[in-house]
Each structure stands twice: as C-alpha cells, then as structure tokens.
C-alpha cells in the first residue's frame, strides 16, 4: 500500500533527519567489514530501507537484510516482507531459532518474557554470530522508550552482544567511533532522532509502502488486558469466554501477533494516521505486551542483546 500521490511539504525537520540518517548509513558501510540491516518489516524498517536505497543509489543496497522470524508474526507481515524483497531485489536472510522451535517455545505457554528471550534475543544472537556482522543497522528510535533515549547512534556491544549502559563511548559531534576489538559489534540506529510522527510524515512525503496492518480495517479480534488482539490464524488460543469479534482496528506497532495489541481506529490513510498520532495520548509501544514485563524490560533486554 502506498501513500497519497502528492507529497506534502516536508518542512525543515524531515530534510535534516534524512541527511543525518544517510550520513550514518554511509559511515557504517564505509567502515564495516560485514554490515547487515535488521529488517523487522515494520514502518521504521520500511523507512530505513528507503533511506538505504537513497544513500547508495544508483548502487544496490550494499548489505543483506536480516529478519528474525519467530514464526508468530502476522501473516500480512510475512507476505509484505517477501513481496518487498522480490520487488527490490534485496538479499533477504531469514533466521529462526530452530532449537526453540523444536522445544515448542510459544507465546502462550512460556510467558512473553521467556518467549521473547528465546525466539527473538537468542535467535538474533545466533544469526549475528553466524554472519560475523560488525555493523548492525536497525530502526530503533530514541523516542520509543526511555532507555533508548540514552543510547548512542553507534552503540557498542561486547563480544556476548551485551550493552553496557554505564560504559558508553562518548559520541562527540557527528564523529562516530567504529573501532572494534574481536567479537565486538556496533548496533547503529540511523533513525535515533526521529519520532513516530516524523516516520509517518516521511512515509507520506516519500510514498513509502508499509504493511497494510497499520491502516484501519475490519479484523477479527478479542479483547485482552485492555487491548485488541488479532486472531491471525488457527494457532491463536482463546481463553474461556473469549469470542472473536469483527472490529475496525489498526496497529501502531507490529510484532508477534499474540503479543501485539491493536487499537480501534477509522484511520485508513497515512494522513489520517498522522492526525491520530498527533492527538494520541498513549505511546506506540503501549501495545507491546513485552514492554510491560517488569520494571525496566527494555533496558534488561538490550543488555542481553535485544535490539
């Protein structure tokens, strides 16, 4: 799905953010031996991919895309991923933690925290080790969560992929330190200074395709802990008394469908989403169940290697 045909005025901020992100992408590629981009299929990944195509045009995107597939992603996400890779001729690599899969780890029986550790964090570490990647691009933004607001653009990971928040390298000016010792790597976030609103404005201005789940549509959902959970396939376990109902919903953020709540919305276009985002009084990650596991779940996960 594409945004409207006439790009709205980008204003001073999008131009600055775009130039900054392109600078970061080029710096990473110029200094990396085995760069890779984590592709999560969401809007941030779509924007990052678009920026990478701009940064290196007319050359092809000079790094592979890595998707960590938990096998519990929304079906529409997987379809969008495969379509995008085919249309743009991308080097897409998909990795699943096969051991976790064999042990039957799933979001229903094992709790969202344990499930995320095994099928996302552990899987990511396996794939990065196998690829021996030194520079790892991702679409993380500082406005998403308070520990991310503290993270450098080029963020050092130790040999075990750990983040040491108390020992971050000073990052002066736009001079990025890319020196690494064996086993160390850098998580690089070109969208660090973007907000959710910037992302949508940019999607609109550039006509960037995004997964249709972001737009309101009639979908079968159940209400769970104040959120609306999509019954995306037959594996969805309904709790006693739960009855799927068709409601007009959309998703502000995309992850594993049983752990990602949608909101009721009428927003069917990027412009309508923007209007809704600007008026929203809840953050986008509010729909992420995994962000509510304990006191500082994101910081804990990042220390262990999560993006």
């Amino acid at each position, binding site marked *: 799905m594409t945004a409207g045909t006439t790009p709205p005025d980008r*204003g*001073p*901020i999008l*131009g*600055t953010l*775009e*130039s*900054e992100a*392109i*600078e970061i992408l*080029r*710096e990473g*590629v*110029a200094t990396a031996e085995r760069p890779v981009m984590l592709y999560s299929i969401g809007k941030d990944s779509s924007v990052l991919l678009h920026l990478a*195509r*701009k*940064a*290196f*045009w*007319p*050359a*092809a995107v000079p790094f592979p895309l890595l998707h960590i597939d938990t096998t519990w992603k929304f079906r529409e996400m997987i379809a969008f991923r495969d379509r995008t890779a085919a249309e743009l001729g991308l080097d897409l690599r998909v990795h699943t933690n096969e051991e976790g899969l064999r042990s039957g780890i799933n979001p229903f029986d094992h709790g969202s925290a344990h499930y995320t550790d095994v099928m996302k964090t552990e899987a990511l570490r396996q794939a990065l080790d196998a690829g021996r990647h030194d520079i790892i691009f991702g679409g993380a933004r*500082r*406005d998403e*969560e*308070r*520990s*991310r*607001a*503290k993270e450098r653009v080029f963020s050092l990971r130790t040999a075990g992929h750990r983040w040491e*928040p*108390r020992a*971050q*390298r*000073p*990052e*002066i*000016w*736009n*001079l990025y*330190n890319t*020196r*690494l*010792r064996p086993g*160390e790597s850098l998580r690089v976030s070109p969208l*660090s*200074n*973007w*907000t959710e609103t*910037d992302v949508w404005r940019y999607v609109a201005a550039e006509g960037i395709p995004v997964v249709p789940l972001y737009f309101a549509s009639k979908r079968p959902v159940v209400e769970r802990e104040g959120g609306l959970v999509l019954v995306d396939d037959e594996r969805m376990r309904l709790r006693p008394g739960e009855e799927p109902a068709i409601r007009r919903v959309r998703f502000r953020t995309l992850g594993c469908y049983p752990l990602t709540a949608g909101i009721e919305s009428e927003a069917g276009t990027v412009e309508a989403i923007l209007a809704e985002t600007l008026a*929203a*009084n*809840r*953050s986008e990650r*509010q729909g992420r169940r995994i962000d509510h596991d304990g*006191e*500082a779940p994101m*910081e804990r996960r990042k220390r262990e290697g999560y993006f």
Partner: protein
Amino acid sequence: MLPPLRLVLCGSVDDGKSTLIGRLLHECQAVHEDQLQAVAQASRRYGTQGSDPDLALLMDGLMAEREQGITIDVAWRRFETPRRAFFVADAPGHEQYTRNMATGASTADFAVVLVDAEKGVLPQTARHSRIAGMLGIRHVVLAVNKMDRVGWDRTRFDAIAGAYRAVAEDTGITGMRAIPLSALTGENVTRHGARAGWYSGPTLLDHLETVEAAPPGGNESFRMPVQYVNRPHSDFRGYCGRIASGAVAAGDRVRIFPGGTETEIERIVVRKGERERAERGDSVTLMLREERDVSRGDVIAAADAPVEVADQFQAQLLWMGDAPLVVGRPHLLKLHARETGATVTRIRHRLDVVDGRTRPASTLGLNDIGSVNLETDRPLPFARYDENRTLGGFVLLDRRTGATVGAGMVRFPLMRAANLRWQDFDVTRETRAQAKGQRPRCLWLTGLPGSGKSTIANLLEKRLVAEGRHTYVLDGDNVRHGLNRDLGFTEADRVENIRRVAEVARLMVDAGLIVIVAFISPYRAEREFARGRFEPGDFREIFVDAPLGICEARDPKGLYARARRGEVKNFTGISSPYEPPEGPDLRLDTGTESPERCVERVLESLD
C-alpha cells in the same frame, strides 16, 4: 517557522535539569499517558516529590539512574510546538560524567544553563558553561530554578544573574538571558506565574521558540568531506558526503584536498534524478567532470577558497580517557571522514575550567581540558574549529581498546608543517649558518635565581665572540623590560614568557646565531616545549645548579630578602616551585666550580 533548535541542558547536579525537561515535554504534550503512568509508578519507588509524579524520571531512563536519583548519561529527546521543533540533550550534572555532558553539548547550538536559586552559581555551572563555550555554543539562557523555594525573591534572582553574567563573559558566550522559574510548579516554564509579577520577560518556552541561535560558522565557502565513494559500475563514480559549509551547484569549480587538483562539479545526484543545488547539512552524491583520484577523507572545496592542509596542530583537547594522557604515545585520530595516526607532542597548559586560568601541566586526566600540540602521520585537510565544527573537530581513539579518549578542536596549524608555502625561501638556515661559518645553537641555561646564569652567560658570550662566533644573549630580566613587559609572574604568564623567548631564540638560531638563554624557566613542561621548537641537537639544556642556601646567600639583586619578607610574590625557590631538569644535556655545579671552569665545560660540550 524557524529552523529546529538543538539545545543542551546543563548545570550542576540537583539543579533540576531532568525535572525541567520533563516539565517542558509534559506541557508540550510530548509525554504519553502510559509513559506518565510508568513515571507515577516509578515515583512511588524512587521519586523525590512525595505523592506527585517525579518528572525527572521521564528522562532518567537507566535503572542505575533511577536507583541513585542522578543522571549518568545524556538523554536525547525531540519535541515540537506549532512554532518550532527541538532536539534536546539532557546532560548529566556530576563532574564525574563531564564527558557525557560534552557529548550532549557537541551537537547543540544553544544551552539552557540551570542554577538552583537557593545555591546560586556553583563551580559546576562554570565548568559546564566553559565546556559549552569551548564547543562553540554562543547563546544561552540562564534558568534560575526553584524560585518557589526563595519566595520569588527578585533581589536573589538579580544577584544570581549578575554573578553568572561574569562567568559567561569569560567563556565565549555572547548572548545570554536570565529567566526566573520553577520546573516543579511549571511557572515561567510555559506560562507566567502570578508570584513573579515583577518579571516581564518571556517564559522559557517563548524564548526557546523565538531565539535566533545560528550555528557558528565563519567561512561559508563550499566544503564537503568525502565519506564514501560510490562505484556501482565503470560509468558511475560518485563522491558521497554531507556538506560541511556553503553551497554547491553543477558547473562549480572545485579543488580536491589534500592534493589540491582542480575540476568541476558535473552533477548532484539523488535517487530518481538530479538536484541543481545543495547546501550545508545536505547529504549528497557529487559527480566530477574529470576522472580524479578521490578517496574517503578527502575534502572537496570551492576552487577559489581552498582548505588548509597540515600535519601539526595546536588544539584544545578534552581528555575523556580513564587513564591519563601520555605525551608521545601514538593514538588514532578521526577528523571528519579521515582516520590517521596521531601523537600529542606537548601539553602547553591545562585550563582550570572553574576559574578559566591556565596552569602548566605534564599530563591531562579524565575530564581535563588542555591546550596541546599534535602531530599526525599524514597531512589532513582541515579548518579551524571556530570556522567549522565538522572540519575542525576531531576525536582521539586508543589504539589498543578502540575507546574514545579525547575530543579535540583545531585552533591553528603549527608553522613547522612542511607543506606551508611561506617556508619556501631560497636562502635556508643552512646557507645562513655556512655564511657565518658556525653551527647555530640554543644554549638554554636554567636554574634558581642567584645560581649564576647571567654570570655564565656573560662570560660564555665573551669567549665565543673572541673566537669569531656570532652570538646573542637573551636574559630573563632584560627581556622583561621589552618583549615581555606585559607579563607578570603568575604561572600562566611564566608559561607565555618562556614561549615567547623560545620562539625568539628559534628565529635567531634560524638566522645563524648561537643564542644563550639565561632564564629561570622553572617548569619542565615549558623547557620541553622550548626543546620541541628546535631541530634535534640544536637545543642544549644546561642546568646551572647550586643549593638554595648558596643562591640565597648570594642574592645579587636582593630579591630573596624581599621574598622572605613577603614583598615579592611567586618567587621561584621560595613561594613558587622550581622543577630541576631530569636529564639535562649538561649540569654545572656553581656551588663548587668557578664560573670560568663552568664556561670551559660548556665549550667542551659543544665540540
């Protein structure tokens, strides 16, 4: 709409920086309800505001920060109002985390300096202001916070604003406004408070929305460091980078540095087309008319405004390594897109960031700022930091660990740099020396007052002239009557005193003379500096040594007696230290040897 404002919040610990930014975000609806709920929850555990949500917890995003109730690292936030977009860095206040504060300030054009109305201007306020000024921030707002705790006392506010103005004037800050406010209650943050009726100026937000804070930039000629060379196939060779200053258009004449070859911009390429013009801050891909050898780290610049190229610099350096700086140790240096080996060859002095004075130093510890000489393995295209942050700001990396250990700002190239044009005269120092039939040298006599430096210098010169040599004596007291008449006896002035004499002596050696310098020159670092200004072998450090008791007994000018009576301040040996040479080229013991014998030994050592 004004361009986005990049601002840093600084000030001492507990002045309320995180609370203020939390308040701003909250009032500008940049905080979502679920985030506020999380803050309310955390406030019950860590908060300092009783039953009210502690807005500082919005910013203190690390577990360790919430547990200790302090800010350890910078938090970056974005927010916008209908009038302007803001990039905010909330910097930690503790001295221990100064390098993180510098990280936050390095990309800012504007600083909000917080002061607690109860405590007033603290050393850390001065430290942060000086670092902000050094990094190029010229505009600040002084937010006098916690005014509610002092009953919105106008006299108190005026006193603090006055005290801060004195600090700001000394730190390169040219634009300053003071606002009385309370981050806790929100008064004068986004709305006026009734209790401060006497204050008729703008609220903090009003001011931030309208203030002009153009990033500093002296030279607006086109410059772009090449970040990446894009060569997808043989027909396309594009040079990618972000424009550091000025603007560029197809057809412009440019030169490539360090080489300096000239060519023309053929096209500015963007995906799905071309652009006619691009300017400072834009990331672009340039194609050149002729095939040129251009690589990452080169600088493309307007042909009529070339960039400077040098391999020796004087720079301001903020040391960020856990271990102290060691002069002479090789590091890696990164300046725009260029990485090369580099060595700090000398520490000229350390800056006291609280009182702004310079002190001699032989090393720099964590968070120290110093003025240093630096040598790079290869010539670098650069600009002075005052003219351009991108081309004049560099970092030093530890070769072994890769850690970022220093942030530097180029002040100017050192004139020894081999590739500077003014050195290309046909008559060289060798020609001049040959014409005089002698080996020019600098004989540097150092020692306590009364140790016999002037006596030996006098005898030595007479002997040399008798032998047909061309000489000159630079004597400490004599030079202070003329060249150094403006200098006193503080440490900073002594450093400058020596620097000037070393430069003059160097010129005279260059002219072919044998120069005898008779100077107390009490600090090792300064004498090492002097040595560094000469070719190896041209500089002889001669330690004129005598015990303090003997020197004091001689007291040829009666100064020891006056110093003992407290009439002379900073008198070397009495109230100011003398650092004896550790490995002088020659040591003369004037306590046991006659002046004549000492002169003989000097002459023997020259053969």
